């Protein structure tokens, strides 16, 4: 059996996205299913059209299943419908607003709540904190909503609105985080805590804090559990990173495919939720295993031929 995963970033551009694909590949290999990958760089303006083209290629190649990462919940509805008309089951990471066989959704909001609660446990009541938001992507929005919810429920004082452009890292890279952090540091002369929404943003934030001469003023927590963020935790530069178990997310998506293709389960709009993950702190950082050691990083097979 051969399946097609329409990946969202070129290999090497984002370690988390790479690790997710390896988790998916590993689970499918265990079940004797081959994974092929077509990569569409979603940073390019015509990515929606290219995503539809990749799906058409999969249909033409008669793949046994399609796996698609949903960024815009309304797209690529027509291409997916065409695949399903030809009897090709479709699985998605995140849930679209069109019918598919099964979707894996993420507990982003819960991550945000627990990150905020952890930060609150390190700070006095009503301590002043700021949050750096991310791009207009479902996962990141839900995460930031959870952070805001957790900050407020924990009795901390939220100084900024992470949904306005000034306090967001819309590029989702470290440099964007650095710029957003500079804007926050300029606006708020004192911070007890700062939550950059993800690790890349946190890494840029650390640079901005050093440049502003405010090292040691505030405690930080971010999300993803990337190796660089864990290093920052070990070095005492950040207090925590929420490890989202990205290879586990890939494996969980693979499990849905295996249930349908090998177990012959009839899945119609099935929803599964990714594992919660855990917070990596200075206390437990020694137990952290890099993503690359959790599943074999066998080279992914790009293309359908």
């Amino acid at each position, binding site marked *: 059996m051969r399946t097609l995963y329409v990946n969202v970033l070129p290999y090497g551009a984002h370690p988390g996205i790479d690790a997710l694909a390896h988790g998916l590949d590993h689970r499918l290999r265990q079940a004797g299913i081959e994974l092929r990958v077509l990569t569409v760089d979603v940073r390019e303006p015509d990515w929606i059209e290219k995503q539809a083209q990749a799906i058409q290629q999969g249909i033409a190649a008669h793949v046994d299943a399609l796996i698609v990462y949903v960024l815009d919940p309304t797209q690529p509805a027509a291409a997916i419908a065409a695949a399903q008309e030809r009897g090709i089951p479709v699985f998605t990471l995140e849930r679209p607003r069109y019918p598919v066989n099964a979707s894996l*959704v993420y507990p*982003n*909001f*819960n991550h945000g709540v627990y990150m905020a609660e952890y930060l609150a446990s390190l700070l006095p009541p009503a301590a002043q904190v700021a949050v750096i938001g991310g791009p207009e992507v479902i996962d990141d929005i*839900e995460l930031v909503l959870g952070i805001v*919810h957790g900050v407020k429920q924990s009795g901390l004082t939220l100084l900024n609105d992470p949904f306005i452009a000034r306090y967001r890292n819309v590029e989702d890279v470290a440099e964007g985080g650095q710029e957003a952090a500079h804007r926050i540091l300029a606006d708020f002369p004192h911070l007890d805590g700062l939550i950059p929404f993800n690790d890349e943003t946190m890494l840029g934030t650390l640079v901005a804090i050093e440049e502003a001469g405010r090292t040691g003023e505030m405690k930080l927590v971010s999300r993803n559990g990337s190796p660089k963020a864990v290093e920052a935790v070990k070095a005492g530069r950040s207090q925590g990173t929420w490890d989202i178990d990205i290879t586990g997310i890939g494996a969980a998506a693979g499990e849905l495919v295996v249930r349908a293709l090998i177990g012959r389960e009839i899945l119609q*709009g*099935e*929803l599964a939720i990714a*594992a919660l993950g855990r917070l990596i702190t200075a206390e437990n950082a020694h137990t952290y295993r890099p993503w690359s050691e959790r599943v074999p990083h066998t080279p992914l097979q790009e293309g359908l031929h």
Partner: protein
Amino acid sequence: MNQRVLYINPLPLDANPAIDAIAYGLQHVLHAAGIELRVIFADFRERGVHRHCQEAIEAGVAAKVAAIVLYVLDPSAFREPVAQARAAGIPVFTFVRPHYPVDASVIYPNFNHGVFMAEYLLSLLPAGSGVCVIGGPNTVDDAEEVAGLVFGLKRSNCKLLNDPENPRYCNLLDAAAGAREPTLQLLAELPRIDGLVPYNDETMLGALQCLEEAGRVKEMKIISRNGSPAAVQAVREGRIAGTWDLDASGIGTTLGEVMVRHLKGGEQFEEFVTMSPVGQMITLANLDRWRPWAERVRWTPLTGGL
């Protein structure tokens, strides 16, 4: 059965079918592993419930139970008695995660539920429709669900007509009777409502009665959460458009499985957190595939007291 576990249930039997199903799901897995479940009911709506819960935990410690299970409504409550139980070597497991250390917790994807519920309702309504949400008693899981509902509705082309975090629009009792005041409030304030989301099925049942009395039940599409038998019946009769089945018995089995891993498998947990199933929206279109909670696990009568 050589091990005995204590569960402090937050409502008496039959007050909320989802809470009952969680207990039966928990018991189902524990029984299968040869572990006995004892239940002390501590109705969270009653005065003195805090003392009652505390005494129940102390009783569990005195009885040297193999584990204690709590349903967390206030994440800060019972820090001390739980710490004492753990210090006495009794592991503590919780439904919903508290703000203090326990061995393991099951949490719910409440926010995701709220978002998916909103998306389903919106798929039934034309652009510009006005939607109301009746909130709950501001427990952890209810507040998260309402946050998901608000998020889903605010991102849509429909209008959220009220603030479901305002106690005026909340069912603070978490039972059908508590839906009356917020529903009457909404009906008095709003001459037209296109969609209504009572945050759970019990609230929906109370709201439905008010709407029928006011002759406005056909004006709006209604959805709620839990997937309780009475709500599924309302879907079947076309009185509501859907109920999100949160797989209440599955919540219980999820925690039960973690407990068995510890009590029988010797696995050690410290602040371990796992997710309950997502569930699904039950509508007229998929009712034929739906199985009641009582058919998913064995509903052996619960044994009260120690």
